[in-house]
């Protein structure tokens, strides 16, 4: 479970640097705790998607291996934090709605391809099955993370409405 834990620590550290401009104990410890909801959501989604294909004894190791696919996202978050904390806030909105979206699209494909090969090799999924697994995992994880982060009404309509409004605002 080293990789999921690392994701939580990276998220807590990013939160601290974005809020205070440094890695401060008071924010890192606290933020790492509640941002564990991201790796937890990803791990739970994996258990749902993989179902009985994951043997009980090997689940922990499989989750750790699966989080290799989170590497591009983790490196991307580190890079984004590095840039945002070294430029004037006047540039933040431009970066967040421009370069960030392009970067996200690349990372999304990169990460999906790693997960695709995880499902192909670790769970012996067919090509079509692995694609379905990746898409289902993304749907479950992203919906959960987006709902917790941004949506006050946890209904399909509420989630879609928030998504539409946020695109409009951008």
């Amino acid at each position, binding site marked *: 479970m080293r990789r999921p834990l690392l994701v939580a620590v990276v998220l807590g550290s990013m939160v601290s640097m974005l809020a205070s401009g440094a890695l401060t104990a008071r924010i890192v410890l606290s933020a790492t705790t509640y941002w564990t909801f991201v790796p937890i959501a990803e791990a739970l989604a994996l258990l749902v998607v993989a179902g009985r294909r994951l043997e009980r004894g090997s689940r922990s190791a499989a989750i750790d291996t699966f989080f290799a696919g*989170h590497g591009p996202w983790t490196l991307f978050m580190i890079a984004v934090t590095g840039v945002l904390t070294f430029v004037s*806030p006047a540039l*933040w909105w431009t970066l967040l709605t421009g370069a960030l979206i392009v970067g996200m699209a690349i990372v999304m494909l990169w990460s999906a391809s790693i997960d695709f090969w995880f499902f192909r090799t670790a769970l012996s999924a067919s090509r079509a099955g692995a694609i379905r697994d990746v898409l289902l995992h993304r749907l479950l994880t992203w919906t959960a993370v987006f*709902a917790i982060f941004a949506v006050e009404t946890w209904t399909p309509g509420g989630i879609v409405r928030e998504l539409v409004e946020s695109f409009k605002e951008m």
Partner: protein
Amino acid sequence: MRHFRTIAVGGCFLAALVAGTMSDRPKASVSREIGGYHVLSADLHVHSFPISWSTLSAWDTVLEARHQGLDAIVMTPHNHVWVAKLGRWFSHIIGGPLVLVGEELTSSRYHMIAVGISTAVSSRQPAARAIDDVHRQGGIAIAAHPYAPFQPAYDAEAMQRLDGSEVVRPESQHDDRAASELREFFERSPRLAAIGATDYHGLGPLGYSRTYIFARERTEQGVIDAVRERRTVAYDRDGVYGDRDMLALASANGGLPHDAPDLPIFAGLAVFSRIAALIALSAAVLFNRW
């Protein structure tokens, strides 16, 4: 080799944490009494995690407000109030700052800050009716980032009821067009209290844009009454908005600090902390083969 890497990455992270914690000094409150008023430094538009597009939890947000020397904040979750109530509860436990329960009503036509409410107000109604709902709860309503696309929602009926308007925000201190749109809206009505607010989402310093509130008492009700009676002052990059009598009073008593807070972009220890943390975390990810 593996042990050496672990020690190097761990050491780098620890150094970042120590330097960052040392650089993280709290700012003093500028609160004082002038002419019978408590002058409070406040940020009236603050979001927190979860469900409001913010990264810091309610308790971390309250601690951050205290750290930034703010005397009061309004916690404004999107279309609900429970996270704000959590923040106010935590603030009571640790002894301040003042936390007022608020809500940011978000709809496609307008965004509005409700301050001093106890239950959420629906944004699925015209602005004037939403303001009436806020007033019925004893609260006040402030136009949030009233840029051109949101201005038509504030018709004559809404403008008569509105208590305040955000006229200073972080982006307006860098962007002339943003500043001019906010100013144009604020100048539409002499009834509006001038509000400086950060619209905090966990990025950058809380209280970067703030409002000085001239309250008769240092309480939540005191803050609400002061805004309702327009006893507020907000400083922009090169201007000031708000009650002229309060400004004169403050000027006669040494003035109020009005430079935007320093950003820790190039502050020594903070820079070292960030660079060391970014190196340590990148190395941890790469050495862990992702």
